[in-house]
């Protein structure tokens, strides 16, 4: 409870609601304009507007935070991520969109780092940017008509023309307004480290404790850790002659502290073993599914091919060159 009241810092304290809604509207207009419409001009204008609004909003967030100028990294990563996200959805070329998405992923990774989720940050970049997005790129390559010799690649109609941009933006930013309005209900500041969390993992990591203590020289190589009582702050150490002693908390080295990866690993494997299993099954199924699906030979009859080609404007005239 202490934590809740100490650093009350609702969104209301950061930004005036009306200003927020105004920003939402403006951002919406910008995004709307930025969406591909076949032409160039309004898109650039919109992108600029949206970027300005975004930057302005971030600035406002920072200025009204009531503290010293906030952490610069947060703004850098945020702006980078959101800007790239805007480009993901507005860029007419899928390849570029995918590449911008990688940028978003990297920026998110940065934010994760700020949130002390180091493992996840790197996992994200490796898995997403490294694996998934590459698959996307492959598919994009596969699923695009090769350009004719000497011509620049023609953009498909469905890439250059957004569908109902205005309506979608209204819905989206309405949702955004609502989402952000939720935060006026008293969302708290991030807590300072203080009260120990509920993870008492050292007792389960005898080997690590023993290795660390030996490495730090707190115990001799012949001594062995017998029991770890984190709550009482004692580690029971047995000598090879059978005598034992206690290592008090004040003697514990800093490197004995549980790291992010360790904590996450325990959380994953100890608290969510079922989830892991299911995730494994899902992945297996996905693999099998992908194999099965991709093996399937689709025979496209000429008629359909022709009709589709017509639709796509690949064959301007009947009997034209293929």
């Amino acid at each position, binding site marked *: 409870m202490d934590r809740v009241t100490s650093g009350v810092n609702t*969104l209301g304290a950061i930004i005036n609601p009306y200003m927020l809604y105004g920003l939402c509207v403006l951002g919406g207009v910008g*995004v709307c304009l930025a969406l591909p419409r076949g032409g160039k001009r309004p898109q650039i204008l919109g992108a600029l507007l949206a970027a300005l609004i975004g930057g302005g909003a971030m600035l406002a967030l920072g200025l009204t*935070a009531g503290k010293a100028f906030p*952490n610069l*990294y*947060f703004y850098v990563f945020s702006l980078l991520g*959101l800007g790239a*996200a805007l480009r*993901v*959805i507005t860029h007419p070329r*899928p390849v570029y969109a995918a590449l911008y*998405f990688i940028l*978003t992923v990297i920026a998110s990774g940065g934010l*994760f780092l*700020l*949130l*002390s*989720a180091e*493992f*996840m940050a790197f996992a*994200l970049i490796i898995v*997403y940017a490294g694996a998934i997005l590459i*698959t*996307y790129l492959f*598919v994009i390559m596969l699923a695009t008509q090769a350009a004719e010799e000497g011509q620049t690649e023609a953009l*498909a109609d*469905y890439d250059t023309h957004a569908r109902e941009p205005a*309506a*979608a933006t209204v*819905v*989206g930013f309405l949702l*955004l307004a609502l989402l952000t309005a939720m*935060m006026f209900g008293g969302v*708290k500041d*991030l*807590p*300072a480290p203080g*009260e120990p*969390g509920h993870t008492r*993992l*050292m007792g389960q990591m005898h080997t690590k404790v023993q290795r660390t203590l030996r490495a730090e020289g707190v115990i001799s190589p012949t001594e062995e850790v017998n029991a770890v009582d984190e709550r009482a702050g004692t580690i029971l150490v047995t000598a090879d002659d059978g005598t034992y002693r206690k290592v008090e908390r004040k003697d514990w*080295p800093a490197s004995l*502290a*549980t*790291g992010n990866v360790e*904590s*996450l690993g*325990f959380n*994953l494997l100890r*608290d969510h073993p079922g*989830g892991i299993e299911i995730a494994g099954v899902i*992945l297996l*199924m*996905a693999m099998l*599914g992908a194999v099965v*699906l*991709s093996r399937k030979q*689709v025979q496209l009859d000429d008629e359909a*091919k022709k009709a*589709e080609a017509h639709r796509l404007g690949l064959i301007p005239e009947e009997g034209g060159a293929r």
Partner: protein
Amino acid sequence: MIGLTSLAQAAYPEPMAGATLAHYLAVSAIMFVLGLIGFLTRRNLIIMFLCTELMFQAAGIALVAFGRYHLNFHGQTFVVFILTVAAAEAAMALALIVLLFRRKESLDARSWEDLKG
């Protein structure tokens, strides 16, 4: 040597000053909405899937932020699962897209409106 309280919490260093939970949630919300708008407006199936991934990202950020806020790892664990699902989904969805593209030589979502195989 470290302080009394530091050991267990060493995984969570001091928060960066000024960035509150609300900041992260705001970023997450904006990113989510951008993904949503993209999904609604774009007609290229691949880009639509990218947009869902974008929304996954947004959800991930929010989850990690909440985990940080509550000083536990459940948020991150969830992100692991999100990653898993995203990977599985990407594999399946992309396979499907390839299949669909082979059939109609188009990635337009509108080509697949007729609810029948």
